[in-house]
């Protein structure tokens, strides 16, 4: 085998999460009353379009989760694997990763962004902007660049549109909404354009060490998604169990749980997270023998960050669930169960939990975008992910120096900003649609028919 699959901690947790989602989907599909709100989601064109955009991010994130170590050229009998952990996504976009320039270059530039001493034809030393090693090297004449960019963009757009039209034709049975078709074609055209251009140019420029910013932005997606989803694995059991227990049992159980979350939420959360992250950092640094690659160390830091974020952010959902349970426990079906002497644990699991599921779902989808943003803020402050891990936060953190540079380097920050905006906006729009579909307080006329 020319490579060895590597399953990092975060990968394992992502697979666990996917398994849980698939199991839940199978469960829901079999029950019509649970399917009903999802059908309502599927009828909303905003939800479908935002889901489409989200799924592009999800696919990139998932591809980036399949990690491996490539085998090195053999010179002995023993197989040796590279210490560098790559992902399926890296393999797919190969040149994007390997085409590293010397330092900054602007989007679509042919030259570096910094002057260097060079020798010209007469062997004089001149300070000039040197040509890039990879960006636009196929051009003989630099004046042809604009024409070439336009041409490549058009070809890519055409190919993308064609693919989009074919895809929507394949899906015409299942989805008939015009908004979705239009969005699909537009998105495919955009992806086609970027793909075709990025083969020859650095579409979003390069950063300080010459890495392609498009590649960095795409790699950041996984970090954002992981923070946004894995944190819920920690939040959910805590919030669900404590919130439901506090609401159902009341009395001293309620008092204890309420005191815990009131105290927790009155400590400034950034302070709490910073303290925890710094402690974790020290622990990891003093035990280098725990990790065989630098990627696994960075990954452990990411998982630990999720854990810390989860431990500090369950209070909101917990409070919400406590309130809902307080309402539900007065319902007559709960009293009917009590009249039969059904045990408390059974009442909690059979009667209360299924009836608070919609709140959990709404809260999770809404929290997702908040967590993606929280990661950026924390990494900016310096208590986020490992500096070697590519994330929106580290990109923005780097931009701190770039913005003060003369002339200014704007593209790193701009692309991190745009990517994050699109991701969070899509997530928020989707969350809105989910909330509308699941909210029992909204009046609906379809239910009566």
């Amino acid at each position, binding site marked *: 085998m020319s490579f060895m699959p590597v399953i990092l901690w975060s990968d394992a947790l992502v697979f666990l999460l996917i398994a849980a989602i698939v199991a839940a989907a199978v469960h829901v599909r079999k029950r*019509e*009353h649970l399917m009903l709100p999802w059908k309502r989601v599927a009828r909303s064109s905003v939800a479908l379009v935002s889901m489409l955009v989200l799924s592009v991010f999800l696919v990139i994130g998932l591809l980036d989760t399949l990690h491996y170590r490539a085998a090195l050229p053999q010179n002995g009998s023993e197989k040796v694997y590279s210490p560098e952990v790559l992902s399926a996504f890296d393999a797919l976009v190969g040149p994007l990763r390997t085409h590293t320039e010397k330092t900054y270059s602007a989007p679509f530039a042919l030259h570096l962004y910094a002057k260097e001493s060079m020798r010209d034809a007469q062997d004089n030393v001149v300070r000039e902007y040197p040509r890039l090693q990879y960006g636009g090297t196929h051009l003989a004449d630099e004046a042809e660049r604009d024409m070439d960019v336009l041409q490549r963009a058009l070809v890519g757009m055409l190919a993308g549109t064609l693919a989009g039209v074919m895809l929507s034709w394949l899906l015409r049975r299942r989805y008939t909404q015009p908004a979705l078709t239009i969005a699909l074609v537009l998105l495919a055209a955009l992806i086609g354009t970027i793909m075709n251009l990025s083969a020859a140019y650095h579409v979003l420029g390069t950063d300080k060490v010459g890495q392609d910013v498009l590649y960095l932005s795409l790699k950041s997606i996984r970090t954002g998604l992981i923070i946004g989803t894995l944190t819920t694995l920690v939040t959910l059991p805590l919030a669900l169990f404590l919130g439901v227990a506090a609401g159902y049992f009341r009395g001293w159980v309620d008092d204890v749980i309420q005191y815990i979350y009131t105290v927790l939420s009155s400590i400034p959360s950034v302070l709490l997270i910073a303290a925890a992250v710094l402690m974790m950092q020290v622990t990891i640094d003093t035990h280098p023998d725990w990790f065989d690659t630098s990627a696994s160390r960075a990954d452990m830091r990411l998982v630990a960050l999720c854990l810390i974020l989860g431990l500090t952010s369950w209070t909101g959902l917990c409070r919400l669930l406590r309130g809902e349970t307080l309402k539900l426990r007065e*319902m*007559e*079906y709960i*009293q*009917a*169960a*009590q*009249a*039969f*002497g*059904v*045990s408390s644990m*059974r009442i909690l699991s*059979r*009667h209360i939990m*299924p*009836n608070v599921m919609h709140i959990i779902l709404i809260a999770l989808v809404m929290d997702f975008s908040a967590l993606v943003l929280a990661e950026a803020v924390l990494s900016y402050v310096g208590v986020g992910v490992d500096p070697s891990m590519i994330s929106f936060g580290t990109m923005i953190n780097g931009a701190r120096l770039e913005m003060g540079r003369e002339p200014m380097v704007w593209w790193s920050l701009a692309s991190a900003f745009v990517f994050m905006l699109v991701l969070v906006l899509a997530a928020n729009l989707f969350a809105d649609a989910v909330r509308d579909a699941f909210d029992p307080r909204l*009046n609906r*006329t*379809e239910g*009566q*028919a």
Partner: protein
Amino acid sequence: MSKLLKVDRLTTRLRNGANIVDGISFEMAAGETFALLGESGCGKSMTALSILKLLPDGVENSAGEIRLGDTALERLAEREMREIRGGRMAMIFQEPGLSLNPVMTVGAQIAEVLALHKDMYGDAVLVRSIELLTQVGIPDAARRAQEYPFQMSGGMKQRVMIAMALAGEPQLLIADEPTTALDVTIQAQVLQLLRETQQKSGMAMLLITHDLGVVAENAHRVGVMYAGQIVELATREQLFAKPLHPYTQKLFAALPDAQRNGHTLAAIPGNVPPLGSIEQGCRFAPRCDRAWALCREQMPELFAVPGGAEVRCHLYQATGGGKNRSATATELKQTALAARPESNSQNPLLQVEDLKVHFPIRKGLLQRVVGQVRAVDGVSLSIAQGTTLALVGESGCGKTTLGKALLRLNQPTSGQVYFEGALIEGDAHRNMMQMVFQDPYASLNPKMRIAEILEEGMAALHIGNDSAERQAHIDELLDKVGLARDSKWRYPHEFSGGQRQRIAIARALAVSPRLLVCDEPTSALDVSVQAQILNLLRSLQQELGLSYLFITHNLAVVEYLAQEVCVMYLGRIVERGTTQEVMRAPRHPYTQALLSAVPRIDGAGRQYVSLGGEQPSPANPPQGCPFAPRCPQAMAICSDKFPAMTHAKGGTHGVRCHLYSAEPN
């Protein structure tokens, strides 16, 4: 008399095309009360909202004309309509607690109407609001005007709503179920107030209700609605003397009362059809036992019969299939049931002695107990095998708390409960007593299938050895309550209110209890469905020898179902006896007032005992007899001492009142 409101072929529909209100036409004269009568979901409220042009999202007015005086309302723009609403037309809603703004004083809310429609400002507004509040019978109006809605009781809030409606001096008042959320004695007060104000001001009133009694008291003319259409239009006298449409006839027949005691009620099978589900033929045909082929093919027109009434039924059309209506008009299906078992008080199944349920009121940082809410305060009663004891009282009198205390859903503070002579402690009696709850929409878990709901109790109490045995038992239960066996694989939301209540009864029966505590099991249901459930309860009693503790505020149901009655007021039983004794010859002033407050459909010969004020809070009960402050016959001793139970000659009829203490036993 000139017509004030003319509604012509009004049609209101959902965006998806289903007609909620389908071609309604009626007229109203000034000073007249027109009642729209019908079960829930038949389009009464939508008709009212269409007239006011206040339809909710997704519902639109698609056809028809509405004329108020000379104004064609359907052509008015929203801005012009605002002048009409509150000015020439006003509306009172069902739930007084939700229709007043909680952060404004009631005076300010009335002042708002005055400023908008009467251009009144400053002191004039204040004087006028106090005048209005006095007019609707609010004592100490000047002080009350400065109060917020939460400081007032339900009946008081509904009076404020009426005052607000009157502030614009409307020509037409639309009252949407104005008394449904209120207690019987308060309902009587509000209905009387509405009658009086109407006589004084000469406005017309569109009264929307499901209660035949309310119609009998207040209406001049009646339109009976069914599935979005008016099926019968008549004056009150015509309607009550001789209902024409089979639906109206059945509504009357479905009303429980003492005359039908011993017979099954003529329940209307099935439910009101969902909107837009019947496109062809008469909408009542599927539930009508006199429908024939024509009824299913052709929709009958509203047709005037000799005598002035109008009816939408093929039976009365000249070409109506040759049926003789006089022969069928009064034919009601009544099956005599076997004689009821005599009450056997020597050997009671359940005996309750001096049961008290107090809830502590805690205050302050240390949660010290500063007082007690005496929800149930020393109640003793007994129920014999196979009989029904009705527990009657207004909301807040502690009757539900008592029922729940018997099942230990509340912990009793003191007192003993004996089941077949054995003292009950802890959970050991779960399979002996079960409960049927009030609201069938809240009492079934929406996320569980019927089979799971029914099996839960059996599993918890270890009844039946394995799943197969329990499933067989579930099939049996569904047969018993009249549901199809395959319905056990469905979810509660697929059933109507009546069917849900059947499921709730089946759930209680699953553990084969001897006693059912029924907590207002029919109050959330329509009249026609109520009859089905009452019939079911009776036949189950005969079949299984069940005893019922029937908690209710509906006195008509008491007469139909119960052998014995206990009347409860503020946590105590004030009168007890057999149904005959209590209903025919009430002795306690409260029972007398309660009985006289019930609107009767026969109307005549009722002596109305007016009851001032409302039930005091059980946290702070009055000294002595709790009823003394409202009692028209209160004496000096009443506020000193709570009277003991005095028994009349037969020994079964007891009453706690000083009026009778002096009598020899």
